[in-house]
Every structure is written in C-alpha cells, then in structure tokens.
C-alpha cells in the first residue's frame, strides 16, 4: 500500500465530545458573497442542485449551482482555513439556463473534475479544464444529452472500462400540459463504447426518477442501480433496483428475487452503513414519512428485502418539528454526515413545499438529526441554527473552510441559497481521499473503513444520489476523542489495503 498523508495545517482541539453534541452553525450567506437563486415555476418545482468539489486545487470545495430559469453559476471558494466563508462568482463556462442539477465526476480520468449538468432539455457534460473552467464535451465524448426533464444522476465504473457508466433519471414529459400524470419519460443508461459513449439505453420502465444511486447493497462487489421515483406522476410504478452486469443489458430486480413493492414520493436517496455490518442502509425522502431501509436478513446471499426502521431510529421527519405549521413535511436532499465528529453519522434533510400545496407544510424547516450512541437520531436543526423554512431542494454537507467541521449549503427554490459555517464544538476528524492510476482515479465504488478502537465506520464511495446534488472530495470521518485511527480501503476491483494508523485532524490520501 502506498499511503500518503497530507497535513492540512490545521488541527482542532481534541477535547472530548459528549454524545449528541450540537454544533453551532452560523449563517454567512450574505457576508460570504454566495448570492444565487434557483428559480422557476412548473418545470422547476423539482431540482435545485449544488455540486461541491475543488476545481482549482486549493483543497477547498468550490460550488457549481443550478439556476433553473436563471443561469447556472460557479462560485470559487475563497475561505481561509477555519475562518469565515467567502466565495466569488467566476465565469466558468457552465453559465447555461434550465439546469436542474449538478454532479461532479472526473469522467476522462485526467485528474481534473468534470461536471454533469442535468437540464430541462439537453443534458451537458462539461470537461474540466483546470482553474475552474469548463467546456462542453457532449460531442467529444459521444454523449447524447437528450431532450428530457432530467432530475437524477448516478455514475460508476464498470470493470475494464475507461469511462464511467452514467445513469440519468428523467421526470415528466414537460410537454404534457393537461395530463402530466403517467407521462414519465425513460431514464437513460450511458455505457462506454470505445473512446466515448454508446447510444443511451432506455431503462424501461421508468417512473419519474428524482434520485439514483449505484450501490453494492449486498456486499457482492457488484453495483446495482437504485432508483427512487415520484409516485405523484407514475402509473403502475414503484421504487426500483436494476442489476448491472458487465456486457449484459440492465435487468430489474423482481419479486421472485425478493424485491418488495414500495410506492412513495421518492425525492432523494442517502446511504451509509449505519451499523457497519457491511450492508448500507438507505434513507429515502418523500412527503410525510420518510423511510430508512435496512435489510431484513443482512447476509452475503441476502434478498433485497428491506424493512423500514425510520420510526425506530427517529428519522421519519414527517412533519415540522417547530413552529405552528404541523402539516406533513416534504423532504428532498438527504445526506448522512457526521457534523459533530463524534464518530456517528448524522442526517441532514432539506425540506420545502413543492409549490403551494396546502395539504403540506409551507413553513417546513430543514432537519438536522444527530445520531446518539444508541443509534437513535434526535432533531437538532433549531438548536444548531439551520432550521430554515425556505423551500429547500438540494444541498451539501461539506467542509467549506477546511477546519474539519462540516458546513452546510442549501439551495432554495425561488429564494436565496443559504450557507452556514459550522463553528463547533466538534470532535476530532479524518479526511480520506483515494487516488489510483488509470481510469476511475478517485475510486468510485470503493469502501473506506476507519477504525477507532472497536468502533468501525464504513463509507461507500458513490457518485449520485441526494436530490440533484453531489460532492466530490475526501471522505469525512468523525473520530470523537480519538487522536488517531486506522484506515483501509476495499478497492472496486476487490483489493484490500492493510490497516494503516493515521493521526487525527488531517486528510490522508490512499492508493492501492
């Protein structure tokens, strides 16, 4: 193993962190200069994504923001380490309209992150040129952007391929004015062919996807494609999972294989291995109750049969937890992330009414659910200061100022974007970046494991999920009071590195 450790030059205090420590988030939207809106009416009632990734090599995530009827925008991160948040808009080449979502991924494996722009209309892949500049690459890469209303994305590398396989989720036929229901358009699977992409493969049937994620759900080493669908618009639909076998056409999991029909207003997927048993749990946002799925019988030959443990774990987040508006909630982007660095994944959920739906809460605060030692989550958004009641959509929980405390950016619909700096208190932390030569340089599909004593944390490296929002950068692990940890990687090809001891409060880069 070639472990390379890169100190960030900032070490937080390593004071013990009590269970359920609530970090304080300071909203710095206006002073940070991050001024942007996702705007629009019917075609933009969903969407509103943010991509957080480093486009200029300063180890701080920059932000690519969808704009809906307005242009997409890129803001360069000018924050100082541990200091106030600061951003500046730059002309990057992504300033196009009708963008619903943005995902970062190094498609051509040149070490420069590219961008996928999901749009109402043609999707565009933008090749990163360095220094936060991008150029259209649809033609160069043979990528057919289509002409649909795209609202979901996921990517993975199939074995032996030089380019990632891209899945694009599509929504309603935007031209169906009178009867949009039942008009879901086909999702597309873009598989590599030669130096570019083959013609897209329709993932029929499609049921108005709002989130997709490639995941090794059963520890088999193979990825499947989970698709979360909006029941508001499909007819005869349900949640889906596709087999993706090399050189084989995609194939849906069936009831005979244990797949159980679930029909929700699927809006976002978040995943993490909450109990470190080798099998990820999936959080599915919806309207009213959200779902937390755990395998009924986690085992190597497990059937994809999930039970909903959202209530037991305290994460139904089905109605506003504060204020007087107690109508059911509407959930969008979701992300597991350890915001207090206590070694346990917490959960952020962006909330907001679809668009003047009076049966659902209009003042619908975002959730920040902190996981306790018993595995049960407790609401802390209000105390933490992030309980905004704007109509949130996408978001990212990401360390914006390099201090080891995860900050928060949320895209709101027809209202200003918001950003908060996490001022702590938080525990120790570890960042883990992956690097390998050749295709898939950042190790999408790998598992990173971090061990402190007998406490194990596992992250699957994915590209996709959430609600039209993605992060690319080091994996963040909270370490609590631990001064050091052990880390190893299970690479997409099955190679496993040795456990390596690393000191806390730094980012380490691991290679095979």
């Amino acid at each position, binding site marked *: 193993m070639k472990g390379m450790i890169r100190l960030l030059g900032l070490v937080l205090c390593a004071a013990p962190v009590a269970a359920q420590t609530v970090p304080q988030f300071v909203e710095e939207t206006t002073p940070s200069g991050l001024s942007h809106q996702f705007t629009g*009416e*019917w075609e933009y*009632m969903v969407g509103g994504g943010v991509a957080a990734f480093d486009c200029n090599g300063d180890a701080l995530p920059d932000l690519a923001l969808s704009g809906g009827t307005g242009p997409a925008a890129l803001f360069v991160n000018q924050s100082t380490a541990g200091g106030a948040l600061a951003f500046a808009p730059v002309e990057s080449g992504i300033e196009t309209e009708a963008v619903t979502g943005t995902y970062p991924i190094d498609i051509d494996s040149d070490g420069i992150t590219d961008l996928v722009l999901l749009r109402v209309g043609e999707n565009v892949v933008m090749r990163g040129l360095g220094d936060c500049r991008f150029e259209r690459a649809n033609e160069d890469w043979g990528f057919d952007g289509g002409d649909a209303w795209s609202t979901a994305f996921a990517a993975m590398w199939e074995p032996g391929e030089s380019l990632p396989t891209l899945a694009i989720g599509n929504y*309603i036929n935007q031209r169906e*004015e*009178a*009867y*949009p*229901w*039942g008009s879901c358009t086909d999702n597309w699977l873009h598989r590599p062919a030669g130096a570019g992409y083959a013609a897209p493969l329709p993932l029929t049937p499609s049921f108005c996807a709002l989130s997709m994620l490639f995941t090794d759900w059963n520890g088999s080493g193979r990825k499947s494609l989970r698709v979360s669908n909006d*029941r*508001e*618009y499909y*007819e*005869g639909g349900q949640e889906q999972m596709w087999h993706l076998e090399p050189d084989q056409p995609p194939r849906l999991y069936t009831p005979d294989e244990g797949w159980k029909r679930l*029909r929700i207003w699927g809006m976002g997927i978040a995943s993490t291995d909450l109990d470190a048993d080798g099998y990820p749990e999936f959080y599915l946002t919806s*309207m*009213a*109750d959200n779902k937390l799925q755990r395998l009924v019988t986690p085992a190597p030959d497990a059937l994809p049969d999930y039970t*909903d443990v*959202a*209530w037991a774990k305290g994460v*139904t987040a*089905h*109605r506003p937890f504060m204020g007087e508006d*107690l*109508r*059911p909630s509407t959930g969008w982007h979701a992300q597991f992330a350890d915001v207090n660095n206590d070694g346990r994944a917490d959960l952020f959920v962006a909330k907001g009414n*679809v*668009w*003047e*739906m*009076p*049966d*659902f809460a209009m003042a619908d605060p975002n959730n920040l659910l902190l996981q306790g030692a018993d595995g049960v989550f407790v609401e802390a958004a209000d105390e933490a200061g992030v309980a905004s009641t704007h109509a949130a959509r996408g978001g990212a929980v990401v360390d914006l100022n390099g201090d080891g405390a995860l900050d928060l950016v949320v895209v709101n619909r027809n209202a200003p974007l918001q950003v908060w700096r996490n001022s702590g208190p938080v525990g120790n932390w570890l960042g883990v970046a992956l690097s390998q030569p050749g295709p898939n340089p950042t190790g999408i599909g790998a598992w990173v494991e971090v061990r402190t004593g007998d406490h194990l944390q596992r992250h699957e490296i994915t590209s996709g999920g959430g609600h039209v929002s993605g992060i690319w950068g080091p994996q963040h692990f909270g370490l609590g009071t631990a001064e050091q940890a052990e880390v190893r990687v299970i690479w997409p090809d099955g190679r496993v590195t040795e456990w390596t001891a690393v000191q806390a409060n730094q980012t380490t880069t691991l290679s095979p």
Partner: protein
Amino acid sequence: MDRRRVLGLGAAAGIAALMPGRVMAASDPVPVLTNWTKLTLQLVRHTATYSPPVAARAFGYLGVTGYEAVAACDGALTSLAGQLNGLAPLPRPGDGAHDAAMVLQAALSAGTAHFFANTGPSGQRAMATMRRKLDEQVTAGLPEDVAARSRALGLAIATHICGWADGDGGAVIGNMGFPESYAAPADPAAWVPTSLVRQQQAPLLPDWGTVRPFAMPAGNTCSLPPPPAYSEDPASAFYAEAMEVYTATKALTPEQNLIARFWSDDPMLSSTPPGHWIFVANDLITRRQLPLAASVDVMARLGVAMADAFIGCWQAKTTYNLLRPVTYINRVIDPAWKPLLNTPPFPEYPSGHSTVSGAAATVLTAAFGDGYVYDDFTHEREGLDGRAYASFWDAANEAGISRLYGGIHFRAAIEQGLTQGRCIGAYAVALRTLA
C-alpha cells in the same frame, strides 16, 4: 317501474343542448361531462386529502352539479332541490338563450376548482388547461351574449352547490384526515394502529359518520348488526373468520391475487374505490354513447350513493371500532403473518369497499339493468388488463371478496358491507329526476 326509463336511457340521444324555444347551434355537452370526470379521477389520486370518503363526497357534489346544470336547461328534468338533504332551490335561467354545454362547462369547472382547491401545481395546471380548452370548444360559434349568460348560470349553480357543500361537516380536512392522537380502548377487540407510518397512528376521519348525508336520512339509517363477538377461542366464530383470512391468504391463486390488486384502489395511488366506480360509469357513458340527461343522471345518483355509503360505513366503523385481521392474526395465530395489501388505517367493520361497491351496484343496476355485461378498464394504464363482469353485482361481490384475499377484512365486514351498500344505494335510486 322501469328505472331505465326514469333515468332517461330510453330517451333519444340528441337531447337539445340549448333551452327549448331558444335553440341555437351548440356543441355536444357530453364530452364536457366526461372530460371533467376523467380529470377529477386524476385529481382525486393526486390530492393528498382525498381519502375514499372525501373522494366520494366530491363525486357526490360534482355529480349533482353536473345534473343541475343540465336540468336547468332541460325542461324534462326536475331539480334535486328538496330531495337531497339541505339542498335549496337552485338558480334558474333568466331571459335569453342558454347553451347547455356552456352552462355545464362553467358549472363543472367552477365546482372542480372548489373541491380541488388544495391540489398541487400539476393539478392546478391541468384544471386551467382543461378549462381553457373546453371553453374554446364550447364557445366556438356561440354568440357572446349566449356564452356570457350561460357561463353566469353555470357559475351560479356551482356557487350554490359549493355553498351547500361547505355546511355538511366534511369540508375541512386537517392533517390529511388523521387526528393528532388516539388512545385505543382497553379492549382486545378494539382497533389499534397497524402501520409504521407516523401520521397513521390514529383512525382516519373518525367523525365522518356525522357528515350530512345526501339522500339517506342519517348516517345510521342503514345500520348493521354487530360483527361476531371477539374471542380467541379456536371454537369461536371470530377465530373462524380470522382463520379463514389466514388460510386464504396463505394459498392465494394467481387469480385471487390479481383480484386483490385489481380492487386495491389505494388512496394517493389510484382514484380510490369510489373513483373506480366513477371510472366505470364514465367509461360506459362514452363507449355506449349515453344521452346527456341519462349521463348526468347516473353520475349524480352514483356520486350521491357512494358519498352516503361512506358516511353510513364510517358511522358503523366508529360504532364497532373493530381490530383488523393483521392485529388479531399476529396476536393469536401467527406473529409473522403479513397481509397482501396495506391495511387501511381505520377500524375494520364493515368493509368500506364493500359498502361503496354495494351502493354503486345498486345504482348502476337500476340505471343499466340486471345482468348488464361490461368490461372494467379502470387500471389499464397501470398495466392491469380489463376485467369482464356479468353484472354490476358480479363486480361488487368480487370487490368485496378482494378484501379478504388482500388480508384486510373478515368475511362479516364484506357481506354486511355489501348489504349496507344495497340499502344506502336505494335512497339514491329513489330520487326523482323526470319532471
């Protein structure tokens, strides 16, 4: 009495679209009725408060709206004012010609907007599109003064009916119909929540039995005997009913499985059980080219009967507050058993789908006749093929037993529900529509 004749099925198809004596060229009003009905079925599915009782209520009021709009322009029809509980005499046409299609269009567009004011952005957009397109169709070639006069009359009728509806006790639905809390009685027979959904920890619409009925005198008019007495004794009738559900669901044939799914009609995933019957009626109106008067007649009676069916059914559900099969079977027979269908979040006895299907079959049989053979294409767009029925009661009986196959009802709830529906439906059949 030949009820088909009463309902106008024997009349000539070309009922005058304009008021007698003021005839002008006009468009066919029937598509106005069927198109709004189709949209209403979608709105029911896509509006969160539209559980089956709430949907039935809307179908009742919109059915009456359509009927009264046509009756205002057809001297052969008599108003339902004075026949339906609390319905005062409606606005009548003044001087000048009126166009029946425009009156109907104005009444249904306003009524639909009222009852689905809380639907989402796509529903609002669809209603606006439907209103615009049908307006364009019915006003094409129509003198402006006739169009304006007809629109005003339709709006006045809708306003009158919406005002009537607002006072029935069922107009305001909070928290999608679920009370904030529920304390289950200390009685092993009592209903307890069966869902892991947080919102569904209290019974849906517990006061719906007190909503003002349309045609039947009161919520308890068609009351039912109690279900078999609760018992965990294997020799008891109650245990036998539970064992029947358990046994049947453990060995469902593919056909029984299909029947359970065909009649599942889940709220927010379908147009609900009353919507299923509205679809059937609307489809028959189109396929069999029913005349206008007969069409609005059958829609009004069907809506009224099904709205009353849910009021009567809920009155009984609240009275008996019986637990669901999943609760009993998990407690007494098999802790691991799961029903095929999602168990609805309210008491078991009687079966709502059975009551509403009994009421619907009663009305439709009166309208179309015994042994009326038809195909049901309700779920064709969702991938379920149409099913053929030898009669409306053939279908209603299948709807009833589907709840046993689905594992959500005992047999008594089904049989008594169908009986209750027959009783309630008779009040809608007895309404007088010929002048």
